């Protein structure tokens, strides 16, 4: 049976050229980058070369890039690092209700330690209101963190405008750009951001490596204490093969991004329109145009997400849902609920995220299979009353 992977927002396969670049650094190039000898210097050279590539992709200087173990770590580093560095100045943080757990949970952690956090609401398309940002700022505000694009619904936030508000008030601004770097142009100076979280495995790099961009002059407490690696910001012997792979993935993204974006947008819109035309009682979640090139998120009313996923899996299609039934905490997606969706619609959500191996044939296959699955599940749904509007 053919297998179609449509969960690229969760993770991507490592690009063959990325893997090829990594392999020597497991064996011959095993030296510790902190060592003085030639083995160490070779590894050090490799990670500095990778740092330049990562910096180059986001328009940063290479000494503003700190390698981390993941995107989640970069988010934790940014939120807690700034909070601890500036707590004498104030204890108020502004973020949004639709952030990734990697931002929300550190914020909740800080709330238990005396910080105040404002979680900005979003409109039905998932957009943050600039006026709300302005209104939330107090003399105590030390950090604003708004994600560049949402991982579930794909909505791209007006980061440049929000960052300008933060800059005018001299407040540190962080963006979780895990879903955008490598997919869309991200330039730290154009966006006027102070901190940016990046993850390698979201754009064909390896898992277990990410980075935090830290604008020169930003006050932040180191994430790990120990050796002097990463300018003393993140102690730990670096993951040399991972970092080399990350650098290679950035280089490839820089070359392929523009073309790939257009190709994916065409496939995305074909998939969205195809579903809307073939199935009734369906709506798109997230912004219709201001959205990631590879993100499709829909609610298929009257049917539950996990049962859709299982049926898709049985015909070889891998996707994801915001339904409570598929989460380990049995709660529906906080992002979908923040859009104002009723619980039933959140449970009925399906996310299909496309990537470099997705073809038009794959889209056609989904458009052939999905209506049959929805029909079958609706026939057993007590919520579905055929003929009703």
């Amino acid at each position: 049976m053919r297998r179609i992977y449509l969960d690229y927002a969760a993770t991507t396969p490592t690009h063959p050229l990325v893997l090829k670049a990594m392999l020597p650094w497991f064996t011959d190039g095993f030296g510790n980058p902190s060592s003085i000898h030639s083995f160490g210097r070779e590894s050090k050279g490799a990670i500095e070369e990778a740092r330049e590539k990562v910096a180059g992709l986001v328009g940063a200087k290479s000494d503003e890039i700190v390698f981390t173990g993941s995107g989640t770590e970069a988010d934790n580093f940014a939120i807690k690092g700034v909070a601890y560095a500036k707590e004498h100045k104030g204890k108020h943080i502004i973020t949004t209700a639709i952030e990734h757990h990697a931002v929300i949970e550190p914020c909740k952690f800080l709330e238990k330690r005396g910080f105040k956090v404002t979680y900005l609401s979003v409109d039905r398309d998932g957009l943050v209101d600039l006026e709300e940002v302005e209104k939330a700022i107090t003399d105590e505000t030390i950090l604003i963190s708004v994600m560049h694009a949402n991982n579930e619904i794909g909505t791209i936030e007006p980061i440049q405008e929000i960052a300008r508000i933060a800059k005018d008030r001299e407040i540190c601004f962080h963006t979780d750009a895990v879903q955008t770097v490598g997919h869309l142009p991200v330039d730290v100076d154009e966006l006027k951001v102070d901190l940016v979280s990046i993850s390698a495995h979201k754009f064909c790099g390896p898992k277990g490596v990410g980075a935090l961009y830290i604008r020169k002059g930003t006050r932040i407490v180191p994430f790990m204490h120990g050796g002097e690696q990463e300018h003393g910001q993140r102690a730990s012997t670096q993951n040399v093969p991972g970092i080399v792979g990350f650098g290679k993935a950035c280089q490839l993204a820089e070359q392929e991004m523009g073309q790939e974006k257009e190709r994916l947008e065409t496939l995305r819109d074909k998939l969205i329109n195809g579903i809307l035309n073939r199935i009734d009682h369906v709506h798109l979640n997230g912004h219709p145009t201001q959205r990631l090139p590879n993100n499709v998120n829909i609610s298929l009313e009257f049917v539950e997400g996990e049962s859709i996923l299982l049926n898709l899996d049985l015909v070889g299609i891998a996707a994801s849902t915001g339904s409570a039934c598929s989460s380990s905490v049995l709660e529906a997606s906080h992002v979908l609920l923040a859009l104002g969706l009723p619980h039933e619609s959140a449970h009925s959500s399906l996310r299909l995220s496309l990537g470099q191996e997705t073809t038009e044939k794959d889209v056609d296959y989904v458009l052939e299979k999905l209506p049959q699955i929805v029909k079958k599940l609706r026939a057993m749904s007590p919520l579905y009353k055929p003929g009703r509007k």
Partner: protein
Amino acid sequence: MKRREDLRSLYSEKVMEHFQNPRNVGEMESPDGIGHVGNPVCGDIMELYIKVKDDIIIDAKFKTFGCGAAIATSSMVTEMVKGKTIEEALKISNKTVAEALDGLPPIKMHCSALAEEALRLAIEDYLAKPKRKEE
């Protein structure tokens, strides 16, 4: 095959079999008892219908909005009650339903509790209709 193994690590083969080919799906014309449970917040909604003759459940049907486990337990419980007396049917617990399906993941045990609850409510609904019982 690798893929099948992966699915089995999520749900037992029996759960998947009932999920793919659920028995007794649908509404029932003039049922003797209806059990309606669940709420949209938790994401599972179950409706169970029974037909009773001479104190024996002669037919059962269901409609369910829910995950794989919810659909499979609905299907299994309707299979299990058919031919049972009211007294016997009341003895069916969520545990026996889950066991009949070769087990459920711990986090999905509440789905089988929902099936038990729907059955109990359908029987209570039937018992609350004295007229029909005397027929």
